[in-house]
């Protein structure tokens, strides 16, 4: 078993985000479709948790010697040809699926397969391994995929409310007992009891905690998760739930403009401070408007506020550790 430190793996994930991942400050639309190529390496390994337990994961990784959970996010444009090469470094079969878009079929252990598809309709999607569902996805084989409307830099869909930057929030919940059974080739035989709750693969590390402020360890400061903006920097967040728990996404400072639910455009845009995120691949698209917090007196334009799940069990790790769960901070700069 090889060892890597998490810092290195985390940095690799961020540095490689040519197609997205970090908050995308300026999406440059193209007049013509392009071919977008990406290689994912299916790898596995253990990630040590805050309480000292070591949990087995698999990931769509950006390098053969890394483990990325979730896989790196991708953003393409309607009409692009997307060419995905999957290098399965493991001995078990896996697949790459975007529901309604592409299904690689089983890719055997040690095999490499390249799939091509045309990015059809706009929207936010999860790519994942659909084999042995939901187990392979729960082990970590998932990531975010977005299709921008053709020729648009600031809309989710043609005519949608506009934004200036975009993020993915990919939530996950983890039952180490299930991961261990799956590692040993068995089907889980216990009630699903998640003990860890992650945002883009990380947990919160509040001030004073080791790793606090480290963007590769702390979900509160992960550049892929923490929202940074000035007043007026309207921010699209593509929210995907790889886990099984239904969650309530809660923002402080501003209500969210609720654009879609599970891939469907809402009939009109409600402003909500809590949104119901279905478990088992629920999805939401929201705009965090970065408006002056409306109830502030005197009005303020700067400050830090949290986003956290209000289904508060998800704010814990290993049965305690409040704030070491699915949360991040929102920085008004």
């Amino acid at each position, binding site marked *: 078993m090889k060892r890597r430190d998490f810092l290195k793996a985390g940095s690799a994930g961020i540095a490689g985000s040519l197609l997205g991942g970090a908050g995308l400050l300026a999406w440059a639309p193209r007049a013509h479709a392009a071919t977008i190529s990406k290689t994912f390496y299916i790898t596995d390994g253990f990630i*040590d948790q805050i309480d000292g337990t070591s949990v087995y994961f698999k990931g769509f990784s950006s390098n053969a010697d890394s*483990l990325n959970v979730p896989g790196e996010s991708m953003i393409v444009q309607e009409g692009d040809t997307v060419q995905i090469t999957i290098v399965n470094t493991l001995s078990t079969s896996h697949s790459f699926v975007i529901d309604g878009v592409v299904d690689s079929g089983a890719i055997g252990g040690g095999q490499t397969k390249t799939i091509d598809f045309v990015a059809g309709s706009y929207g936010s999607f999860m790519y994942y391994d659909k084999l042995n569902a939901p187990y392979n996805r729960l082990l970590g084989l998932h990531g975010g995929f977005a299709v921008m409307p053709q020729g648009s830099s600031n809309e989710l869909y043609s005519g949608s409310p506009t934004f200036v930057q975009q993020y993915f929030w990919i939530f996950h919940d983890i039952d180490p007992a299930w991961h261990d059974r799956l590692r040993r080739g068995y089907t889980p035989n216990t009630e699903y009891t998640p003990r860890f709750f992650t945002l883009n693969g990380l947990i919160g590390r509040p001030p004073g905690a080791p790793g606090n402020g480290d963007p590769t360890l702390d979900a509160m400061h992960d550049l892929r998760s923490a929202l940074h903006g000035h007043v007026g920097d309207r921010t699209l967040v593509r929210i995907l739930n790889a886990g099984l728990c239904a969650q*309530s996404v809660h923002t402080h400072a501003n209500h969210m403009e609720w654009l879609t639910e599970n891939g469907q455009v809402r009939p009109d845009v409600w402003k909500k401070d809590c949104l119901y995120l279905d478990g088992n691949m629920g999805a939401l698209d929201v705009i965090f408007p970065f408006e002056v917090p*409306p*109830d*502030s*007196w005197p009005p303020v334009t700067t400050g830090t506020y949290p986003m956290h799940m209000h289904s508060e069990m998800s704010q*814990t790790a290993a049965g305690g*550790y409040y704030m070491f769960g699915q949360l991040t901070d929102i920085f008004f700069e």
Partner: protein
Amino acid sequence: MFNLNNRQRPMMGMGGGGGGGGMGGACYVYDENQQANPNLVTPDVTFDRSIDMNIPLTMDDGNTITMWGFADGRGRMMGGGTFPSPPIRVIQGQIVHTTLSVRMMWAHTIHHHGIEPGWESDGVGHISWDVRGGSYTYQWRPMHPGTYFYHCHTNTVLHAEMGMYGALIVDPPEGPGTLLSGGPTYDVEAFWVVDEIDSRWHTLSWNAGTCGEDVGLNILNPDYFIITGVDGTGTSAMNTPPISATVHVGQKLLARYICAGYHPQRIRFGGLTGTVYVSDGRPLPKPVQVTDLRAHSGERYDIIFEPTTPGEYIIEADVTHWISGAVLGTVRTNVTVI
């Protein structure tokens, strides 16, 4: 196969470093840097709240569960609290002060959920500070009428489940009876605050789990189901205004529904059709007619009913497991139309 080191040792023990806090064995409680709110002005209205960590709640089966909550009053040393905590009701545009007094033995905050003030008044410990051994004043000016609630945001997973919340209502300048300026009015008001209780959690101390001990806060297995502070599984919430309501044909009933638990809920209106005008304190662009709603933790819906047929209508809310979706329990109240 790789081994990624995501493990760190928690900071434990006494204070220091902006992190641990440590008094009473708590970790990641941020009381040591507490300052006065720097932006206070003369308020239009002030609410004083203190802490009560021993509020008995008797269930329909005769068992008594210990709840925690806020009491009305400044500097009260202990006692006087209710479950839910006393409501805060204000008029849109008022400058409001909420002053929280906390004894040295615990840390708490008040977060006005859905109200969006400056960060010093948001009541989130890791961003500002937790309140301990003194008082702190939150300042806010609500600009959007509707239904909110306030709750403690220290070790929130536990403190909110223990009952540290109360209703927060923002009325438009017209006052109670009008939901939105120039918008819908109502004659009768009901409060449907639906929550669940896992009595195992109600034996824990205020700082449980904060230093990393496994106290099972990832597992909420409720054994009691509550509507607006009473056991909702029997008859306690029936014919008990302002949970239940009696309206005449031609009158309008406003139901303020708050999903105060942590598991998702499904509420059914017993054959009545209501119109949702406001959710989470924001008017809907197009009000929607509903016979039932699903909601998750922290959501609020303001629903107006204009019943036309006399009768008794049973309002039922299922609490459903956040993973399996199984119905864990159901609370009931009634609307009587005469």
